[in-house]
């Protein structure tokens, strides 16, 4: 237990972040294709596009 006190609290976080980024990366690719397919058929704007527009026009952030 005492040895744990000397471990940097962030250690191990690299591996975790790498695993999560890899898992989410794959998931986002699938989600992206699905959103494009959906907006092609429905004509509605996806969340990603809305975010992009808000960013470009420097709109106040909405939660």
């Amino acid at each position, binding site marked *: 237990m005492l040895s*744990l006190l000397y471990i940097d609290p962030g250690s191990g976080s690299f591996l*975790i972040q*790498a695993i999560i980024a890899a898992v989410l990366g794959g998931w986002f690719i699938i989600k992206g294709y699905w959103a494009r397919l959906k907006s092609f058929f429905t004509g509605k704007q996806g969340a990603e596009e809305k975010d992009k527009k808000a960013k470009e026009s420097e709109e106040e952030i909405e939660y």
Partner: protein
Amino acid sequence: MQILNASFKDRSGYVFKHNNEYYRTVQAIYQSHYEQLLGSGLKDYLCKRKLFLPFEESEELVAQTSSWKVIKPVQLTQISYASEWSFEMYKDAALCTLHNCIEALDYDMVLKDANTYNIQFVEGKPILIDSLSFEKNNEGKPWIAYRQFIEQFVCPLLLMKYNHHALQKITLSYPNGIPINVCKTLLPSKAKLNPNVYLHIFLPSSKESKPTKESHFSKQKMTTLLKGLVGFVKKLEVKKEKSIWDDYYTHTILGNQYFDEKQVAVKSMLDQISFNKLVDYGANDGAFSMLYANSSKEIVSADIDYNCINRLYKKVKTEKIKNIHPIVLDLTSPTPSFGWAAHERDSIFKRLQSDVSLCLALVHHLAIQYNVPLSSVLELMHKQSEYLLIEFVEKKDEKVQFLLKNREDVFDQYDIINFELEIDKLYTILDKKMLRLGSRTLYLLKRK
């Protein structure tokens, strides 16, 4: 010049008070980061999107503080801490942190810390107040504040979601964030079924003590991680549990007529005095605070009930009310001063100083449910503001009778005569109005 107790850790620059206004030094160690923050346009961009508290440089205090620069941020009028936020407030504070970091990446900067104290609610919205929180992105390194973000924001949100809204109070015992290992033991097994909870909470605790060889962590990966966190936090919802204070004014025997009459009386009494800041103690879902919605007055609506404050915050947010600040406050166990040397963070009463305090339908709960003497209630309010508008509910009132239903009536001092005797010790009565119900009286008082 007085250095703030809360800013002793940051070597980049400390916060100080000068002529009743707050400033922050920028030390030479932070120079290159500061130049990038301003030079890249990140600061202006974040300020426009209301993610980051604006500041301007203040030349005249540089020599006095022996620092590289001094900045003066927009002045905050009310500070609240995480244990005083409702679930939605907490969630939005987490999202504000993440959005700041995502946007910063486009400007080759990153948030170097992610703690709840860096977020405050201004004009009904969370905003990052730590002017020196950004640093140049060290390309290839993972997000330095990831672990802190999980422990400061995600763990409390999960405990509130899976266990109980009131577990937010735990954050007071863990001012540096709830350790992942502690959080894991408190969560029910079903939490593991949520892939995000598994990845951020259960997986790290099995890997954390193993030293790892770090390879390149691209900016793309970091954006993916942060966007993943945004999606995760956005979907978190708190379990709705019915509390006794829900719909107090809509579904009780008191009804609309009583409420309307009281609203008119309260407004006419408050119109007699001049004030800038009002604290509504026991605000419920802000029915009386709303009298001043979108006015030039600053209103703090405090209540013990998380559901009520959550509802009020949602209303403030959707109706874009800029002058009402909801906070969760248990008067019988208020936030003390805490942190390093027990004075790093101020107690709630130090932060709630105001011109007038509003205590409607509150005294009988404190006196009869919590055995607080009438004199103690008045003494506390006397320290908080110059004026006090307080309601006294007599024993014959149906609500007091309800409180006395299952307990022995040991409150022989609880009557209007004693209440007025106590008032006389500390206050002058400016106005007094009895409501038509016949058992409730409003007093407008001024400190002696």
